[in-house]
């Protein structure tokens, strides 16, 4: 269908985007790789001698590194679990006949508009603060010891905040998918005597598969680099219990100002992100045409 002329025109049209993104990727990346082999600390100016693999050695043997990897996985996995399961349940509920669905939907998508810094600050102070926060007040009202969220369950608190931000997104995608489901098929299965659970399992869930992969793909992209929520609530602590890989690189390069080691961390994070990317792309690539 496509002629030779339109092919070259197409290439011409696609090239600005490709060139820009290539530049955006390659220029900082090559500088980062270059820095990662230098002994380069912002607060001790002077020559930046070649350091070989030292920075990689120091970053990989950093006692926080393992914890940061685990936290990153827990954070991404936890949020994905909550938003996908919660999103499916919420979507199933919203798909039922009811009054005022529009208003309910408006309320439910509100968290998506809230900037990450604001939601971090609001949850930290107005809700999870054990003295003045709402949860603290409720616990006191019930005569219970208020839960100190950020020291007793720090990572879970962050997971909850981030999940609150992303649940609307998952719900909406899954709801849209559900609504496109063929009603006749459902009714037919009802007549065949399928219970509502098996209807869900064998008809609705397969139908949502593509939507679920989209949720996982898009959220993973954003969740891997969660930063603002951690910065304004726990600063990665207590200890390193809420330090993810992004935050660890931030600590090395912008709190210890060790740009060399931070860059080594950046290169490692980029490699890991690409492994995840390839994995995800394989997964969604199959689903994209379906």
């Amino acid at each position: 269908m496509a002629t030779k002329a339109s092919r070259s025109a197409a290439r011409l049209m696609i090239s600005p985007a490709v060139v820009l993104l290539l530049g955006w990727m390659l220029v900082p990346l090559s500088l980062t790789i270059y820095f990662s082999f230098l002994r380069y600390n912002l607060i001790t100016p002077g020559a930046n001698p070649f350091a070989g693999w030292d920075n990689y050695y120091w970053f990989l043997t950093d006692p926080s590194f393992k914890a940061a990897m685990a936290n990153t996985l827990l954070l991404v996995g936890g949020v994905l679990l909550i938003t996908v399961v919660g999103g499916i349940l919420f979507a199933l509920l919203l798909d039922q006949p009811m009054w005022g669905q529009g208003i309910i939907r408006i309320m439910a998508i509100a968290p998506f508009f809230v900037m990450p810094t604001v939601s971090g600050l609001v949850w930290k102070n107005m809700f999870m603060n054990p003295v003045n926060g709402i949860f603290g007040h409720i616990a006191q009202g019930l005569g219970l010891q208020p839960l100190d969220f950020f020291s007793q369950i720090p990572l879970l608190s962050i997971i909850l905040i981030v999940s609150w931000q992303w649940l609307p997104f998952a719900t909406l995608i899954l709801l849209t998918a559900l609504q496109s489901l063929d009603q006749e098929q459902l009714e037919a299965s009802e007549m065949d005597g399928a219970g509502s659970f098996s209807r869900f399992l064998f008809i609705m869930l397969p139908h949502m598969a593509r939507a679920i992969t989209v949720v996982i793909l898009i959220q993973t992209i954003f969740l891997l680099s969660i930063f603002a929520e951690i910065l304004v609530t726990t600063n990665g602590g207590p200890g390193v219990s809420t330090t993810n890989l992004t935050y660890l690189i931030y600590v090395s390069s912008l709190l210890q100002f060790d740009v060399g080691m931070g860059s080594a961390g950046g290169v490692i994070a980029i490699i890991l992100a690409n492994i995840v990317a390839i994995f995800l792309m394989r997964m969604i690539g199959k689903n994209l045409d379906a």
Partner: protein
Amino acid sequence: MARNVTTSRKSINTIAAGALGFLMFFPVLWIVILSFKTEGNAIKAPLEILLNTGWTTESYGAVQARSNYFKHFSNSLIISLGSTFLGMLIAIPAAWSMAFVPAKRTKNVLMWMLSTKMLPPVGVLIPIYLIFRDLGILDTRTGLVIVLMLINLPIIVWMLYTYFREIPGEILEAARMDGASLREEVIHVLVPMAIPGMASTVLLNVILAWNEAFWTLNLTAAKAAPLTAFIASYSSPEGLFYAKLSAASVMAIAPILIMGWFSQKQLVRGLTFGAVK
């Protein structure tokens, strides 16, 4: 098609979904309430706040007096709109050619574009900072427009691609038969059909740019600082600060919230990133 549903079943659904929706919305509602209280009242027990305290707008006055809200607001507006439109300009041709003249590598290119979004921004902050310094665009809106355009470009291309693919190729074929040039084809056939999808793309990316808090905070000082930087100055309390923090938060998120509610239909479509019909 319509299933018979009893009224009581419908009421139960409404109550359950309403309660859940309200819970999701509650934090936003709560800061709106607190923003109209005095500092002393804002830390009281929730019921006490709702039932026994007066209303005041003093926190909004205090926030405006301390930080020039409108400057930050207009920066946010310019940066998010500017980056989105620049992104659209570059993405539309790319997405068009991917959707209608697919090559063998199209999908790989698309996936590669998305994967650039996975690069951790902190890893490349110092290089970008140095480049921006040398170009003289630190703390300028131009600099932020460029950066935000680049980080959102993959999403824009991807969304447009999925929308464009929904447009049946036969229509274009027919237009081509009628002797329409490439340009005419795009302007007269493609664009009208693609407008809803493009509107959704624009909306979603304005939101993403508006809320971006890493580059906007690290590449600005005073002149180009958007609302994310405005909020950062309230992140640690000086004295009692719940009411002021609430007021500042409301001021930061209200524009986007209102815009979102008014364009709900496009937005809901946009929120699905074009991936689900």
